[in-house]
């Protein structure tokens, strides 16, 4: 298993940089990873990250539609927060594995 030092902390990641142990995640780490991805995190970002982490911990599928129905943000806004590939980027910043969902 690969490890990576982010903001002075050693965390377990896979070869693509996704956390393999979500319990190691902290807000400071999220800020550091987001900076690497070129994103400055706001409270809105954190609300989405917490939502994704909670869904993941319950074993629910991480779909873009579920984010849109979360009441936190609509889908267009989600694309705005994490430009390009929002699900993948958000999962990486949220310290959870890469989403395995097709929708």
């Amino acid at each position, binding site marked *: 298993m690969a490890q990576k030092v982010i903001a002075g902390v050693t965390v377990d990641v896979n070869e693509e940089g996704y956390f393999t142990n979500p319990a190691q995640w902290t807000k400071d780490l999220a800020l550091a990873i987001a900076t690497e991805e070129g994103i400055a995190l706001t409270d809105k970002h954190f609300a989405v990250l917490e939502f994704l982490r909670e869904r993941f911990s319950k074993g629910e*599928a991480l*779909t*873009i*539609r*579920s984010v*849109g129905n979360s009441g936190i943000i*609509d*889908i*267009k806004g989600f*694309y705005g927060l994490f*430009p*390009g*590939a*929002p*699900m*993948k980027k958000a999962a990486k910043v949220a310290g959870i594995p890469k989403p395995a*969902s*097709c*929708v």
Partner: protein
Amino acid sequence: MASEEFPLKKVCIICAKGTIEDVYAALVMSNGAVMEGIETKIFFTFFGLDAITKKTMNSLHTGTVGNPAMRMPGGLPFPTILGVIPGVESGVSAMMRSQMEKLDIPPVTEFLEMIEAGGGEVYACKLAMDMFKLKKEDLWDGVKAVLTVGQFYEMCGGLQTQIIFT
């Protein structure tokens, strides 16, 4: 030539059929591309136009006749003769739609809205619209334009671009 070195930048997806499975193949691939940050254009033509026609888009059917892969719930083969009974096609189609809902696969309109929200573009084929006597106002409001095939090809240029016919 490694695929990491030349990742897809644009996909142009053509949907020419109007059954649930054909339309969703195009929608899932389009939405998946948008989610990956790939520029996405979908072109609906012939019976595929049903997927972007207001009147038909949320009540698409699957064919219950002449589909050897069709199964009963439980896995037994679905006899073609059952498929011709009035109402069976509607029932099977409604069942399929509810199964998809359980997997968080949205109805057609919502799916198109998701694709649009991510920057995907939806187009309709002029020739097929003339054939089916459809007007722009009959179509879903998110349809960006009605195009000739030549105009569509003009949009499909560029390196690392694929045209996909579902």
